[in-house]
């Protein structure tokens, strides 16, 4: 009886199983350069369409923010982590509402935050964009909407909520989703 291969297998399994990375988080090759942030112009119709693309598949978190908005900047890393932790079941769509001349600053901020997926830049005027995104949004930033996988808004926050509130809502929504 040769126990050596079994021990090697056990060690390999333990290393795999005890990896600290969340199971549905893609693990990039260590040496791979991080993709540059993609900033796509968007209006309210385009945003609704993007949200709709995930219907039937993922919950969606839309966060409308700006580089000059202190509460937005403060909560931003938590939302990036949410995306990382739930990549298979949640899509975070960041929409910058910065002024047009702030685009370079937006890209720089996204790079520093490690955002390597497509994000958006609001190009529509406030009067059309705000009510189309959500009728109850008065215009204060940040504004965050949580959609279930059927494309329905289940939570809306104007201004930054208590830390952890968005994460709790996401976890609760995803837990409910599993039960379906």
């Amino acid at each position, binding site marked *: 009886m040769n*126990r050596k291969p*079994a021990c090697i297998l056990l060690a390999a399994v333990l290393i795999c199983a005890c990896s600290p990375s969340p*199971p549905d988080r893609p693990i990039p090759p260590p040496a791979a350069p991080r993709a540059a942030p993609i900033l796509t112009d968007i209006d309210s119709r385009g945003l609704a369409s993007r949200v*709709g693309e995930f219907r039937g598949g993922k919950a969606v978190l839309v966060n409308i923010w*700006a580089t000059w908005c202190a509460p937005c900047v403060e909560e931003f890393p938590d939302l990036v982590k949410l995306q990382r932790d739930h990549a298979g079941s949640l899509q975070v769509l960041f929409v910058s509402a910065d002024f047009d001349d702030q685009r370079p600053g937006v890209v720089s901020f996204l790079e520093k935050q490690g955002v390597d997926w497509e994000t958006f830049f609001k190009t529509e005027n406030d009067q059309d964009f*705000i009510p189309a995104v959500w009728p109850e949004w008065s215009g204060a930033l940040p504004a965050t909407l949580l959609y279930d996988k059927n494309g*329905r808004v289940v939570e809306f926050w104007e201004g930054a909520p208590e830390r952890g509130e968005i994460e709790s809502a996401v976890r609760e929504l995803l837990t409910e*989703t599993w039960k379906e």
Partner: protein
Amino acid sequence: MKFNQNVFILAAVLLAAGCSSDTKSQSAPAVPVSADPANVAASSSEKSAGSLGSMSDRMMPDISGKELSLTSAKGENGLLVIFSCNTCPWVQAWEDRYLTLAEQCREKSVGMIAVNSNEGSRDGVDSMDEMRARAAKMGYTFPYVVDRNSELADAFGATRTPDVFLLDKDLTLVYRGAIDDNAKDPASVTRRFLSEAIDALSAGREIAAKETKSIGCTIKRL
């Protein structure tokens, strides 16, 4: 062999535990849909046009050293209340129009008052000293008062800076929302919502757009 069997059972358990995801596998058909707002109840706290102004006799410290209320700041035809602050980029983008609006208000016998409700940054960028410095730098020609504990902002349901509320001579709200439709570029403005509302109010005409929206900085409440 018994050892090997146990190892494989253990391995299977560990694999099952280690590879379980926080989601079930789901396919995502790319079907564009619009957001469906139907299942979230309306919850806006902003006052609507037609509401009575609140806390009209509450005294608020002005940068001049005096104490003012909405009633004392009111003009013959009404009062413009701008919730503002010292550092918000949206305030700074629109701020060049504050002076024009103040002049229009003076001509139309409408009072004007800027209110700083950022109690959360009162020890820093929104202190009385910083308010005085901002007003001096920008040449404010109107009162700029401290809203202690953001109580006036709460009463009006103001959410951001700038957030404007135009009241008639009875301090009933007749317009709320945006100054105009282009914060950054005054030359590209196509609708001067507030200015049009002031003109209509003073002329006794119906205000065409009573409520508008604009992006701004969240009021920093405690």
